[in-house]
């Protein structure tokens, strides 16, 4: 994983932790910020993969975190906080695995 992608992941994790601490009832800036970083991270991984000509590792799991982030950012009904917490664990492992 490119270094910059890891930095994006850490920034996303920090924003996610803020969201989990505040548990905002509506879209707080934290979710928007987290999504920004996750997507930049995704695009860096994709760019890396396209250069190497193969599917980038970790991408699928990162995408699943983005899909869960969407559930926090734009919830249908109540925010599924337990899913979001689960996604936090996956994101943390993604960053660790990248080391």
């Amino acid at each position, binding site marked *: 994983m490119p270094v910059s992608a890891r930095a994006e992941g850490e920034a996303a994790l920090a924003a996610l932790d803020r969201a989990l601490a505040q*548990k905002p*009832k*509506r*879209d707080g*800036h934290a979710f*928007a910020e987290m*999504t*920004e970083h996750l*997507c*930049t991270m995704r*695009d860096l991984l994709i760019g890396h993969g396209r250069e190497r000509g193969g599917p980038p590792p970790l991408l699928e799991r990162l995408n699943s975190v*983005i*899909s*869960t982030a*969407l*559930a*926090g*950012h*734009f*919830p*249908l*009904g*109540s*925010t*599924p906080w337990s*899913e979001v917490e689960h996604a936090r664990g996956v994101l943390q492992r993604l960053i660790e695995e990248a080391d």
Partner: protein
Amino acid sequence: MALWDLANSDWVITMGSNMAENHPIAFRFLVEAKRRGATLVHVDPRYTRTGANCDIHAPIRSGSDIAFLGGMIHYILEGDHWFRDFALAYTNIAHIIEDAYADPEQGDGVFSGFDPQQGDYSEESWQYKGKIVPSPIAEHRVQGEQKGAQSESMAEGPPPQDPTLQHPNCVYQIMRRHYARYTPEMVEQVTGCPRETFLSICELVAQNSGRDRTGAFAYAVGWTHHTYGVQIIRAATIVQSLLGNVGRPGGGIMALRGHTSIQGSTDIPTLYNMLPTYLPQPNAFHDHATLDRYIASETPATGWWHNFPKYIVSLLKAWYGENATAANEWGYQHIPKLTGDVSQLPMTLAMSNGVVKGQFFIGQNPVVGAVNTALVEKGLARLEWMVVRDIAMTETANFWQKGNRIQRGEARPEEIGTEVFFFPAALAAEKGGTVTNTSRLVQWHDAVCEPPGSSRSDLWFIYHLGRRLKQLYAGSTAPRDRAIQALTWDYPMMGDKQEPDAEAVLQEINGYTVADRKLVPNYQALKDDGSTACGGWMYSGVFPKEGQNQARSRRPDKPGGPGSHLGWAFAWPSNRRTLYNRASADPEGRPWSERKKMIWWDEGQGKWTGLDVPDFEPEKRPDYRPDWSKNPHGMEALGGADPFIMEPDGQSMLFVPSGLKDGPLPTYYEPLESPVRNPFYRQQANPTAKIWEQPGNELHGIGDPRFPYVLTTFRLTELHCGGVMSRIAPHTAELQPEAFVELPPELARELGIEHLGWTTLSTLRGEVEMRAMVTERLTPFEINGRRVYQIGVPWVYGWEGYARGDVANVLLAITGDANTSIHTTKALTCNLRAGRRAGTRSGPDAG
């Protein structure tokens, strides 16, 4: 109701719509009604040509509709003006609600069940006592889990009722308490409408509803574009159900929709939350993991929707053909599941956050038509690629070259990496197919001429894109690619352009039996065992047999005929023109009156008959009653005098126990941006409104002195919506050549604005300039003892076409209705000043 049925109304209230200007041909039926003696009313902030053609114009401040309609409900209940025989038999007015229910009158603007942490409601205390009531509307269920299995309680016996209406928690008593403060004085104070005008309208509808007389409401996006838009319509539903103006000739609520097939695109939805004809899109966080679980949770025990399994299995069979088998859940796992709200507003925000890599725009121009369009442009610039299909250049397609951000110097084309494709599209006369009008009329249009050059129909585009994608995925062995491989995609092609045959697609929507590919005659023929395929059950019957495309039928009634025009095109479902028309007959099955007859029970024939296709089981006797000892399900649980067959007990819901995000009864809130405090409650705005405040999308506080004026947006007769099709038409563009702001003379004098002089409007989202149109069509309102000015701007302009002007939607914030996520464009606050905006460019369009 059919549009032409408005001519049978004894009164029509147009509210939230400027019908004479925006739906002029539909307005003919109001003119005809007036000729026959009807009284016409227009409730609107502006005195337009609609008001000019009505008997009464009632001015109200934008967004105050629920105070007005709540006042009507108050008048009807307290004056005992309701149609007792109708409402007692056909609505839930006598139903008893759970003891735990608490009204906003007790909760200072909030219903029981509100969770301030999550910002949403639990519906438990809104239920019929001892029951769990399922919501019949798929759109409601996407935001809250369906109670299918739990709705078994509805099959165990009827909901508790008190026909004497004395029980303190029966709907009648709850409504009386809820609307007690919606007095004519309060209506005047909140809406600015003089109480005499308001009362004259109440008297009109009360005196002209009942056995012999009926009336209708007509609305457009002036009702839907609010954070409580659904509740405004609900308030009208309550008025009409109390007065007996539902399912009857000349009675109803007419939605005047904006685009040629906007009804069709809701029925056969290019929408995120529904599969064709109102089946819910599966949700990852609902009990939808398998088809069995999805069916169990989405199938209500009672009412017509109990047939749901037949419709979903037939849809899967239409989509995946022989690859859909009982063993693989008919391909259910191919259907993607939702994790969040991806409707247009979140889509816009997600785009600006970088979520979306590729985007299709198919005949839609959000840089003009969406709100906060500078933010829309920011999102477009983050896309990797985008496809625009339209007939002429759109502001969306060339945002990278001429957009607001380019004009303001905030971005340069060289910095925008979006790869853009513009595909020229064909128009209606250049392709065959069906569109569905606002009263569910599915009408075929012929291909009469050739689309020019490389222009193609959208059918051609999507079909050939699908063919190419199926080829690209043909060799894949990945499980995730099985859906595209399994998808049925064989449609005959015609001519040298290889245009797919739209009739073949319509036949798939209609449905067929799998074994012999014989078209099904109607949706009653559909099965849940995989033996039938159907792309949209509600449209079944549009193509009942080979060579019989009902959408092409052109046999109107002769003068003096029944006037339901059953031979003209096809109205879903089952070609019936008036939904719930069982209510046009009394509980015994006799017309309420000779003058207002529509369908009735024919004892001799043992079936329902009349001037329309009955919206009822054809042979169910009026005196049929469910045998509760047998635990009846589906339609067996609905009696012969329960007309509202999509509801779980066949009764119209004055009080809605399930499905609404913001409460079981319409209650008054101020718009999110308002110059005044809510006079009813401490709760200022809808507590469940969709708000996404983020940089670039800030809202104005209550009474913010920087933004003192109420702003509403509107459309013009000559220019249509996002504008592409009408700004390129020489005649219509010439008639409305340039953007303007409409304001009252009093405000013009205060601000030193001259008629036709330049003005600048601003909000926290942006700034636009327009010429002033100073008219007495707008008058200042006295709200809560304070003078409030209302102004208006048409939103149809952009920088392309012959008629040009600043994009008004730059001013608006992205906020949404609690239930539908529809954007809110009709009531916000802004500033206005004389003179042009900073950084005005030169050029012909800048004048």
